[in-house]
């Protein structure tokens, strides 16, 4: 069979891509020359096939500060995920009392004191831009902190690794067991591992749907079979994807599916703190000998491979920055533990920057420059977008107006020669009380109006949390046309006034007539 494999793998190729990415960001090359491994000779091409089979990763249990930090983050994030839909928020009798609720049938999004209608989806866009730039900022300061601590893929993979370790034992035991022939015990262990993974996945998918319906109502309904089919469908979907991505695919998601590793290189610069092996301190590697070999000079790295065994991505951090590295800092804990045992200073693997590696090499003191052009620009963009979003959110009206001009026909000539335009007016009242609003037309000259279908006059009574659609006919007398129309068109406004006389909404209105 003849096929072309499309998956570009080869760790070396990927690392090159990552370095190239950083180079594209316009900074000095990230790696100093001695850090680069010898490149293969140009005529050798790729040093392996384009398709790489997966090498199973058996991460070893780690103890230390970063491990404890990851536990804390996991507890907080999972806590938010599971608890958030159960929080209540009183919005009166007409609105749901769930603090966070995406009400898709009603097209409303409730977030504590905020309520968004579907046409206000641009706030979601602003939130996403903010999240993206926030990610840029964090990345430029601390490297891939998102990937290492907060990404759901990392959190759930980590959780699944713990389950695996709890049932099958730590790294060496697991490797040994995988090599053993099938036995009742092995099958029982593997089965119970997958059952627990699936149970966690069901709990994950099960919690997701509570964001879309009233949680206390839906929860019992799920068990007595009266919940809607979509609820079960989405539980199945998220159960499947959690099990597949967090349980089965794990590090492959980060390496092959996720675009972020390819993008993040552009956010890093020489001063970014990333999980690094301090080559200046560690090399040349060598074991600790009881009787030192004369002439052998060794660095602090004793080549114990603890960092490699700890890595959930299955890489060696000592090879320098790599696309696969999610910077979870577990290798820092693993190495520190060893350094303590061999009574050498901690921090052979640590959060470090390229600039500091170069400074140490040149005999200068370390510096941590968090305030750089890049970080300042990211912070300013966040402040600007965040400020604008907050401003518009605080000043948004609880009424909304849409005026759609008829286009077929664009205008109608009446018997007395006047010109009439038709409009569909949609007026929304987002407040939880009935209101009387008045529609006024400005800038179209002495127009005559006629409201039909949905409204009797320009004074419109509109119920709480509802929408009025009315047909409006606007006509201009023949003798006024010349004054008002410019090349057959006039632009004006419809403004909506509340009973106090304040403008609560406005919309442009075009009036069309024959071109003179």
């Amino acid at each position, binding site marked *: *069979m*003849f*096929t*072309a*494999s499309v*998956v570009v793998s080869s760790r070396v190729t990927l690392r090159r891509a990552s370095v190239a990415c950083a180079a594209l960001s316009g900074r000095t090359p990230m790696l100093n020359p001695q850090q680069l491994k010898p490149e293969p000779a140009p005529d050798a091409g790729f040093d392996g*096939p384009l*398709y790489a089979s997966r090498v199973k990763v058996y991460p070893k249990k780690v103890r230390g500060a970063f491990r404890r930090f990851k536990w804390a983050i996991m507890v907080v994030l999972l806590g938010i995920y599971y608890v958030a839909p159960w929080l209540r928020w009183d919005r009166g009798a007409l609105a749901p009392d769930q603090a966070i609720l995406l009400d898709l049938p009603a097209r409303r999004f409730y977030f504590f004191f905020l309520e968004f209608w579907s046409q206000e989806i641009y706030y979601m866009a602003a939130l996403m831009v903010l999240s993206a730039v926030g990610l840029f900022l964090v990345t430029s300061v601390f490297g891939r902190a998102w990937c290492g601590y907060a990404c759901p893929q990392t959190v759930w993979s980590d959780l699944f690794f713990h389950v695996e370790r709890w049932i099958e034992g730590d790294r060496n035991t697991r490797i040994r067991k995988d090599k053993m022939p099938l036995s009742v015990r092995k099958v029982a262990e593997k089965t119970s591992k997958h059952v627990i993974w699936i149970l966690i996945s069901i709990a994950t998918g099960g919690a997701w749907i509570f964001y879309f319906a009233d949680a206390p109502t839906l929860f019992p309904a799920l068990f007595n079979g009266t919940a809607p089919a979509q609820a079960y469908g989405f539980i199945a979907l998220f159960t499947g994807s959690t099990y597949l991505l967090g349980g089965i695919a794990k590090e492959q998601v980060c390496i092959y599916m996720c675009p972020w590793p390819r993008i993040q290189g552009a956010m890093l610069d020489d001063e970014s703190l990333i999980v690094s092996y301090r080559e200046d301190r560690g090399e040349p590697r060598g074991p600790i000998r009881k009787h030192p070999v004369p002439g052998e000079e060794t660095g602090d790295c004793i080549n114990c491979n603890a960092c490699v065994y700890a890595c959930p991505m299955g890489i060696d951090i000592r090879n320098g920055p790599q696309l696969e590295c999610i910077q979870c800092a577990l290798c820092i804990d693993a190495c520190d533990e060893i350094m303590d045992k061999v009574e050498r200073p901690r921090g052979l693997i640590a959060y470090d920057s390229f600039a500091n590696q170069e400074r140490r090499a040149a005999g200068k003191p370390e510096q941590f420059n968090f305030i750089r052009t890049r970080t300042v620009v990211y912070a300013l963009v966040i402040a600007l977008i965040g400020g604008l979003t907050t401003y518009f959110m605080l000043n948004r009206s609880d009424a909304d107006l849409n005026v759609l001009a*008829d*286009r*077929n*026909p664009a205008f*109608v*000539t*009446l*018997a*007395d*020669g006047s010109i*009439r335009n*038709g409009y569909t007016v949609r007026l929304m009242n987002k407040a939880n009380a009935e209101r009387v609003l008045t529609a006024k037309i400005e800038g179209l000259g002495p127009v005559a109006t006629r409201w*039909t*279908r949905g409204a009797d006059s320009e004074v419109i009574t509109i119920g709480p949390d509802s929408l009025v659609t009315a*047909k409006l*006919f606007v006509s201009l007398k*023949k003798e006024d046309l010349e004054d008002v129309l410019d090349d057959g068109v006039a632009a004006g406004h419809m403004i909506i006034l509340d009973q106090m006389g304040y403008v609560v909404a406005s919309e442009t209105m075009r009036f069309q007539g024959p071109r003179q």
Partner: protein
Amino acid sequence: MSSEHKDVDQHSGTETTGHEWDGIKELNTPLPKWWLYTFYVTVVWALGYFIVFPAIPYFDGSKWDATGGVINYDQRAVVAEAVEENEARLKPYTEAIVKASFQEILADQELMDVAYAGGSIAFKENCAGCHGTGAQGFVAFPNLNDDDWLWGGTIEDIHQTITHGIRWEQDYDTRYSQMPSFGSDEILEKEDIKDVTQYVMQLGGLDHSAEAAARGATVFEEQCSVCHAADGKGDKTQGAPNLTDAIWLFGSDRETIYETIYYARNSVMPAWKERLDEATIKKLAVYVYSLGGGVEPSDAAAR
């Protein structure tokens, strides 16, 4: 394949197919496993699909058919069922619309919404061919948005027109009138027609020759005022258009008006009662009435 026949490419480490063309060999790169398994799943799926759903077409001697499959699924039946369901859902409204008077329909927001929506669709299916999708009309086909009506613009008038048509001779109750061909039937001399053309343009407030119009006024009074009334404002009972307003069905230039008087205009609209049911015709009447030009009965009486 036994192992001694395996030919492995030195460079890539991949087995070859064993074929060789002028020293060029083809690598036998295996498909990715995920791809293969997905493919196998689709094969199993297809087998199941063949059994469950209609799959194999055949000609039974008169028409094309297909094996039914165990669930005997039929998209036509699904559509028919959906149509039936929708009709059942609309039935109470349709019945109410047939029963109610137009004033009741216009006063009832719910009935009005159903009638307007249904009328809008029926209009596009049946009427848009002549009157346009926006009912904006064309030359010889009236614009239904404006307030100028040949045969009356109350909702009852509109309903009568749609039901029985205009000059639709098969229908006993059709609206009927005939404008004489003043020129081609040699009722008037060409000069008289030219003069009356000028007078009609004067009535319509268009540029005209006052001298010719004055001569034409006499001819108009003798020949035209019976239908178009002495003041030229027309007569809706005869479908005679108002000649003093700004709306001209065939055009307001001198040549067109002359042609109209010379040959006459007697447009035809079919009666729809044979093609459409009463509910649909009533919905259409509501829709056309609501386009903006509809005349209330009190207004019509005042005119």
